[in-house]
């Protein structure tokens, strides 16, 4: 079987950051592979190593810069990747449906039996793309999967869905399916030196909307990001000043007043 993994390069805000317009200043952003997608990649690569998956293909919607991150997924064992980009994604605030337009076209081309995506992207965190994609392409799905046992012959995925409060739902999902992967599903590997070398030779196919038979209008977003600001603090935290020693002394006093360690 063939596994398609959606992988996103996500940005995080450094310790000190400034907001410019409706975004964080480019120089204050750090980029990395989305944590949830790292677990999805690991799950896919393990399926390949177990002989269940014949091929693992990664797909991303991202600018050229994202190739560095996508190469990390290749270094971990993804066979090849597809990178889709259009200026429409850079200028607007893509909604879930517009990303699904792209993934739908990629699915039509690649015909995977299983799609793995992350529960959420750490930056804009919609937590929605995988499930919306499943609906669009007529696959079954399960969201927030923290245990996966695939029975390819029976066409089934036995999963645990991690609910709130330490309760897991045990669910049997028909394939083909989209599963959104929760952290803790496995132990993502570090890329080996050999893997990193091999990844240099693996393909990242730069793909345009046109290549996928789509136009900029197709992926028009119904959402506009109109402002971004630092949230107001809900508490009036007393910030304890001084070097570590002074701060510890003050904190010790506070703790003792609360009856701790007394």
């Amino acid at each position, binding site marked *: 079987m063939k596994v398609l993994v959606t992988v996103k390069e996500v940005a995080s*805000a450094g*310790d*000190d950051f400034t907001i410019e317009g*409706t975004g964080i200043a480019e120089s204050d952003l750090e980029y990395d592979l989305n944590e949830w997608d790292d677990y999805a990649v690991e799950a896919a690569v393990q399926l390949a190593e177990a002989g269940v998956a014949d091929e693992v293909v990664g797909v991303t919607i991202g600018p050229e810069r994202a190739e560095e991150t996508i190469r990390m997924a290749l270094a971990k064992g993804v066979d090849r990747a597809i990178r889709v980009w259009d200026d429409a994604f850079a200028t607007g605030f893509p*909604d*879930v*449906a517009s990303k*699904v337009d792209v993934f739908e076209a990629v699915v039509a081309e690649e015909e995977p039996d299983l799609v793995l995506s992350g*529960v959420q992207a*750490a930056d804009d*965190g919609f*937590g*929605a793309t995988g*499930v*919306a994609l499943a*609906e669009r392409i007529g696959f079954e*799905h*399960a969201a*927030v999967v923290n245990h996966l046992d695939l029975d390819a012959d029976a066409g089934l995925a036995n999963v645990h*869905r*991690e*609910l*709130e*409060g*330490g*309760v*897991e*739902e*045990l*669910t049997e999902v*028909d394939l083909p399916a989209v599963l959104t992967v929760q*952290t*803790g599903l496995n132990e993502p590997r570090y890329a080996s030196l050999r893997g990193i070398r091999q990844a240099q030779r693996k393909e990242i196919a730069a793909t345009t909307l046109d290549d996928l038979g789509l136009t900029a209008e197709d992926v028009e977003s*119904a*959402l*506009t990001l*109109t402002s*971004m*600001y*630092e*949230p*107001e603090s*809900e*508490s009036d*935290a*007393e910030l304890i000043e001084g*070097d*570590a*020693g002074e*701060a*510890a*002394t003050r*904190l*010790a006093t*506070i*703790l003792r007043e*609360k*009856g*701790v*360690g007394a």
Partner: protein
Amino acid sequence: MSDVLAVAEHRRGELRDVSAEVIMAGRELADALGGDLHLAVVAGDVDTFADELNREGVDAIHTVAEGEEFDHNVYQAAIAAVLDGTDAAAVVAPNSVNGLDYAPAVAEQHGLPLVTDAIDFEYDDGLTVTREMYGSKVETSVAVEGDRFALTIREGEWEPAAGEGDAPIEPVAIDSVESGARVAGFEEVGGGDVDIADADVLVSVGRGIEEEDNLELVEELAEALGATLSASRPIVDSGWLPKNRQVGQSGKVVTPDVYLAVGISGAVQHVTGMKGSDTIIAINSDPNAPIFDIADYGIVGDLFDVVPALIEEFE
């Protein structure tokens, strides 16, 4: 003018609190849109749930008695039937784990723009939703085109709807659903040696600790303070501490007298599990870490400097 459909949530025979919150959010939206608020109650003991949720502000309740537990295919079919039989064009669902399992599919199925994890919204000729980004470091406003949309709301952000309502309760029949995702049961995880929910003082450690070997440091601190050790999710995901130590949405909700967060950023799914603590103290090197927004006391500093100094204070 259009109506709003809110969707209730229950699990293993019990309504979840967020059900009353989606009613409140739904009522606000219905007022803004000048329409009625419909409530869908799907699966399980729908009649009891419907009675319990017949609160002020609900105009009509639609019950779909199909199956016992949550199944996204049943929810999708039920919501489609209610949307079809009413003037509702906006859907409000909880941003819960089950909400994440059906709301995006519902939005996709009905071509509704989707905004998830709303913490607030305003309506002025159109909907503008407040939501966070970058691990709660910033808030954003997101404007939605048109009056048909799907919205999921963060749990605990809206007051629960109260009072007694007199909405008619109408059963809705749907064709039986051959589901491709079948629930076989539930499993409770995280039992074990300690119940962190019982502790008066928690020292809670996060990814800032960097390595498993460094855990010794916070263990020492917990011991010096007579506290119990708990953790954020990455520590448990890495297998450094057992699941019964995890604080948060998928771990435990704790309300100790003192919660000392060490190297924890304060992601919403963590904060959900500890914001009810009497006194919250945070040690974090990032002055913009969202944990400081809910803390009573904060030290902006390197835990590897502050924690040893603090241990010394108690020796």
